[in-house]
């Protein structure tokens, strides 16, 4: 039967729908679980499960663990390469599950064996002998030997040719020579003490030479890990299947992992709530706050994996080339408000230095410097003699865009109170990257971003790996001989106690220079069904996929 919809009927329907929406809008905000506060006890480091259905802190007995099942894992964004040298949240969950490292850190920074079964380090820290695990095979069946370590060392230091090796290139260049006494041993020799050797080893994923030099390098991933690469449909999903010949015969517990790629975090959370996923990785903070008390889900929050939000200013350009102006800006950042209102208290605390609690450079007292103090900021501006201060605050419109925009708005509002004008500049990712290139980057004013590597054993490794604090090239265009000497001294000092003193000087220098302004640490938050067990991130921000199981 053909029926006609009159304008009047249509209008009534529209008005009714609008009224329903407005009624919803007028309702109170959904109750949110109280956010964790700084006073709430938290584990000192590493990852822990929090929320309504908390996992037991003790490891389950092997008999309790159920084997089998395919885990549906959701993540926002696809991998950009199959080269496992790349280190990113999307790569760590995917290529990182296939390609293993030589060691992993325990939560207290103790190196634990992985592909290296044991090691002997010389007392002057210039030499390390790695005893490789015997009987390990790649997923192709080829035996893993010391030749593979040599191949990966050489590949890592060939950085321009292998652009994803930026994280391991500096560490691979430390070694002036190496010997391979047998197929299961390699001895690395440096001309200087290398206290950061384990930082390097925990990041160096061991790739398969045959694959990386073969015709399928762009589509295939072969490693020694607990899971094997089955399929990658770009923009849609990645399938991993259990490695039946894994060297740890007890693992993995799952038969496979199906990684679904989402473009939007809200869509991913909705998929989990609808039952289409078992785990949603890196969910938005408002959703984490909303679902934290929901018994239908477990939330998982990492703590202190060396990730932090920060602002960096261009020290090579006016007006932020003036140290007093930079210090004034540092005092004018209301970190606590950002943590409480935007991050809903998840980070637990504010920081003015990047160091995680695990880091030997962590000093709680130093994080109290640069408390929010607009009077002091105004006084420093007056002392600087710089007037009519105006600069840009830019951030990338990729990940954490909402958080950066909120932070920028808070900073802008507070700086306006002391007469500093700022212009907010959300910037597309390629432009944002380009504006940070070079030893004297061209951007004006301040950039907001997220940093990493603040959890490592050798604190100054951050100055080698990170463009934020790099002594040779950095995003601030800030160069100082004293800074360079401090990094060089700390990174080659074999005595741990002396290194700790140097870290303290290093921290004081960073606070005084104020070219990088740390805001707070941040957590990776996952949402999962209550029957997912064993989720854990290691200190290198890898998910320990071989330990996942369904209860």
């Amino acid at each position, binding site marked *: 039967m053909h029926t006609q919809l009159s*304008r009047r009927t249509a*209008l009534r329907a*529209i008005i009714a729908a*609008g009224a329903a*929406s*407005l009624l*919803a*809008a*007028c*309702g*109170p*905000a*959904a109750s*949110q679980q109280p956010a964790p506060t700084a006073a709430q006890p938290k584990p000192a480091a590493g990852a822990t499960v929090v929320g309504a259905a908390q996992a037991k802190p003790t490891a389950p007995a092997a008999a309790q663990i159920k084997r089998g099942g395919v885990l549906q894992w959701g993540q926002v964004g696809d991998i950009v390469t199959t080269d496992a040298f790349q280190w990113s949240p999307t790569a760590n969950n995917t290529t990182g599950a296939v390609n293993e490292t030589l060691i992993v850190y325990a939560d207290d920074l103790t190196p634990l064996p992985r592909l290296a079964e044991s090691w002997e380090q010389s007392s002057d820290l210039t030499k390390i002998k790695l005893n490789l695990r015997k009987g390990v095979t790649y997923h192709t069946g080829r035996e893993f030997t010391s030749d593979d370590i040599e191949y990966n060392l050489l590949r890592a230091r060939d950085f321009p040719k292998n652009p994803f090796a930026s994280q391991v290139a500096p560490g691979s260049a430390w070694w002036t020579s190496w010997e391979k006494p047998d197929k299961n041993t390699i001895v690395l020799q440096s001309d200087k003490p290398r206290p950061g050797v384990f930082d390097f080893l925990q990041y160096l994923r061991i790739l398969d030479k045959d694959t990386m030099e073969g015709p399928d390098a762009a589509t295939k991933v072969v490693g020694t890990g607990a899971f094997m690469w089955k399929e990658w449909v770009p923009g849609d999903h990645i399938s991993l299947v259990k490695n039946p010949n894994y060297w740890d015969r007890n693992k993995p517990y799952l038969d496979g992992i199906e990684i679904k790629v989402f473009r939007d*975090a*809200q869509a991913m959370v909705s998929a989990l709530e609808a039952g289409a996923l078992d785990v949603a990785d890196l969910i*938005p*903070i*408002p*959703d984490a*706050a*909303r679902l934290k008390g929901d018994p239908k889900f477990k939330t998982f929050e990492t703590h202190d994996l060396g990730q932090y939000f920060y602002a960096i200013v261009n020290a090579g350009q006016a007006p932020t080339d003036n140290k007093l102006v930079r210090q004034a800006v540092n005092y004018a950042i*209301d970190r606590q*408000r950002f943590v409480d*209102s*935007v991050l809903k208290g998840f980070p637990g605390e504010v920081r003015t230095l990047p160091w995680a609690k695990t880091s030997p450079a962590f000093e709680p007292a130093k994080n109290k410097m640069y408390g929010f103090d607009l009077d002091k900021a105004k006084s420093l501006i007056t002392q600087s003699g710089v007037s009519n201060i105006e600069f840009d605050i830019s951030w990338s*419109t990729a990940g954490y*865009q*909402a958080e950066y*925009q*909120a932070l*920028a*708005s*808070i900073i*802008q*509002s507070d700086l306006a109170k002391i007469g500093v004008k700022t212009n*907010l*500049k*959300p910037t597309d990712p390629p432009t944002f990257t380009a504006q940070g290139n070079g030893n004297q980057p061209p951007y004006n004013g301040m950039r907001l971003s997220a940093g990493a590597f603040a959890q490592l054993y050798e604190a100054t490794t951050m100055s080698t790996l990170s463009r934020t604090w790099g002594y040779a090239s950095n995003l601030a265009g800030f160069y100082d001989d004293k800074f360079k000497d401090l990094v060089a001294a700390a990174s080659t000092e074999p005595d741990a106690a002396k290194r700790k003193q140097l870290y303290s000087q290093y921290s004081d220098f960073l606070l005084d220079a104020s070219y990088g302004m740390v805001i707070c640490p941040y957590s990776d938050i996952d949402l999962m069904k209550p029957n997912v067990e064993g989720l854990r991130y290691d200190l290198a921000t890898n998910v320990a996929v071989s330990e996942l199981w369904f209860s």
Partner: protein
Amino acid sequence: MATTTSTPPATLARPGVPLIGAGHLRRPRAPLTQAIERTLRNPMGLFGAVVLGLLVVCALGAQLISPFDPLEQHPGSELLPPGSGFFLGTDNLGRDILSRIIFGSRASLLVGVVAVGLGASIGIATGLAAGYFGGVVDAVIMRIYDALLAFPAILLGIGVVSVLGTGMLSVAYALAIASLPIFARLMRSRVLSERERDYVLAARCIGAGDGRIMGMHVLPNAISPLIVQISLAMAFSVLAESALSFLGLGTQPPQPSWGTMLNESRAYLRTAPGFGIFPGAALALLLLGLNFLSDALRDALDPRRIHA
């Protein structure tokens, strides 16, 4: 010589028909005025006009009528529901949503007026020339517009904004470019039929030039459907501005626009629905009003309905 005066019978007085006679001679009302009257007599047209008027009042008087500075943050008052000191609640930074909606109307109005103003004036002028002269002029102009039509409007907008840079005016220029072919094609099609009419021939016979014929004779007779298109293009521009702002290409933070407000509210739709629903409702209301207005204008300008 005796003179007589006569009064026309009252029965001759009919609405819309001028009375002829001493003391009753009136100029006939312009067709456009009649069309506006007919539009406002239509309830849908009146609703659209009121909504549009409201937008103009909000945009021009935002400073006077908004209860708070739209950029002022109220720490500790984030994501408040309607009431509690803030009529429509607050956003994630404690800014008053009502004030931001009121100030956000400026972006919609500015983009709508600039985009439609530019698009319509250039599109109508070139469409008029193409239709009137025909031949090479027609072919060149219309092929350029055909090329523009090959791009979806939003994609074209994104392309133009990426060249001109982000911001409200860039969006307005982008949308003006996107609307050019529609105005031009519509005008051309009307001119193709109008130029064959006797009044054009008559004007030419008395020595009127092309410019005069186009501007004084053809344009007024061909403009009716364009008026409807202007109101439709306005609705499209408002929606496209919101879409481009939602994508981060239009109004830049911290300045409010309904699109940016919708984007900022995405993560809070379940915890603070008002943050997204109110700017969305403002946008929906305006679009509904503009569409009703264009519907009523179409009815008012449709000769079949007028004489029915």
